[in-house]
């Protein structure tokens, strides 16, 4: 049996490191690419590089952005008193699509998970604690996943934020259990945002 030419094998290995791509898909994609129109492949390579180079995390909220700060953080018409805390930048996109939230965001970059070795120091909690007083936040809305880790993270944040005298509420109900925010449709999200309840 002859093996794949070396450049193809390299490409298979590189593609296989992407999330959700197994060895078989990696091979299929690689074989497609090496036989595709060279112009198209160049375009793909260029958009990969340029996307990676132009997109960064917003230094303030953690969202994906081309500018510093991001469009939401830079928009004075947004209600600075209202801060919505999410796990990942992707969650900000989902909430923005629902179009009902008028405040600003803060992405933690994950959730507490001792099982996966994620502790408070691995999340953007210190940044959150700086933002609350400096941006005069009055209410923090926690939009975390409704699994055990999400709930524990909410509990933990509510305690830490208590020192700042802000109102802390949670919008977990209405979201499908165990899934991240990206699975919730827009309707569920707008309903969840209306029905937020205060954390004691």
């Amino acid at each position, binding site marked *: 049996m002859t093996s794949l030419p070396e450049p193809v094998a390299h490409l298979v290995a590189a593609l296989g490191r992407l999330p959700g791509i197994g060895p078989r898909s990696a091979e299929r994609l690689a074989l497609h690419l090496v036989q595709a129109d060279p112009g198209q492949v160049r375009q793909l390579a260029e958009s990969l590089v340029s996307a990676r180079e132009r997109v960064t995390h917003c230094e303030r909220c953690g969202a994906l952005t081309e500018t510093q700060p991001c469009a939401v953080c830079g928009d004075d018409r947004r209600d600075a008193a209202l801060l919505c805390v999410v796990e990942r930048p992707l969650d900000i996109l989902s909430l923005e699509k629902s179009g009902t939230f008028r405040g600003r965001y803060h992405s933690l970059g994950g959730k*507490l*998970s*001792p*099982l996966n070795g994620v*502790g*408070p120091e691995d999340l953007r909690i210190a940044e959150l604690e700086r933002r609350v007083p400096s941006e005069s936040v009055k209410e923090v809305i926690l939009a975390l996943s409704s*699994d*055990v*880790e999400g*709930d*524990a*993270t909410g*509990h*933990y944040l509510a*305690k*830490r934020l208590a020192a700042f005298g802000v109102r802390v509420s949670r919008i977990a109900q209405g979201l499908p*259990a*165990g899934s991240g925010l990206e699975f919730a449709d827009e309707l569920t999200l707008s309903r969840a945002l209306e029905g937020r309840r205060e954390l004691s």
Partner: protein
Amino acid sequence: MHLARLRLRDFRNYLRLDAEFVPGFHVLLGDNAQGKTNILEAIYLLATLRSFRGVGGTQMIRHDAKGYFVGATVVGAAPAEIKAYWSPRERKLSLNGNPVKRLADYLGTLRAVVFCTEDLQLVKGTSRVRRRFLDLLLSQTQPGYLTLLLRYTQALRNRNALLKQPQPDAEQLASFTAQLVSLGEQLMAARRTFTPKLSPLVRLAFRRIAADADELILEYQPSVAGDFAVALANSRARERVLKTTVIGPHRDELGMLVNGQPAGQFTSEGQKRTLALALKMAQAEYLTGIHGAPPVLLIDDVMGELDARRRAGLLPLLNQARRAGGQVFMTCTAENWPAELGREFVRWQVQGGTLAAV
């Protein structure tokens, strides 16, 4: 509910099997190692997507084959066509031609209760075996219980991971403790209300099979006395030493008392077998009560281990399930053929991976 048709391809020692079953009592007769239990395993697999022998999918693939296929027609409230294919590379499950996306949409299509020699562990084994029995039955009958159990387990694993750290952060521990307590209280409440509903069913089945005056009581024995949060706080010193959560629903016990004595320690071998059977009969009866139709009963090798009196006590219970429109599959060898069986049954011969009506 009954299994009307079973198809096997490359499953265990079956290259190919196509069989049709009427409702009622089926006896699978054959020498040792011919494939009797394998058929029960396939039926149970359709009901639960697991082997009751506690093995993974690979072991069920016929030697040298790529994957197994198990298909069935189930006649119940709505007829269902099930197709399951499993190989190390690929798993497919479809119901009436549609791929199954969520397990919850599938489970319940076929309900089965298996009786096998390992059931003795329900009496002899550790509390883990009995908790599993309780959890399985609650998951099959109470919406939300399985989710609760999975969440509790997740909270527990996270909390234990924290306790293993050299200096667990107190605030973080408190956050996972809060989850553990709230989920644990709900689990305990569900088990506490459920046990008294099951107890009379087990007690009745036990008396019928044993045909004597032994008194059986089933009782829920939670590992936590009183308030879970308070008890956890009181156990902190032990947790620090053992680096794990030492109390909670994961340490609960389903207590079984025969004439006031713990069953595991004081009963004879025969009584233990009777008790294990009674637990399974009660499970089947409870499922019948909840769903309005009896589950398919799969009985593997248990007859041979009972004395004549207990066999005579068990058979009417099985016949009862059959009369209710259900189905019973029982394996036996020529040597342990129960003479009490009577005539009303379908007899099958199992030989070297083939099944033939006799």
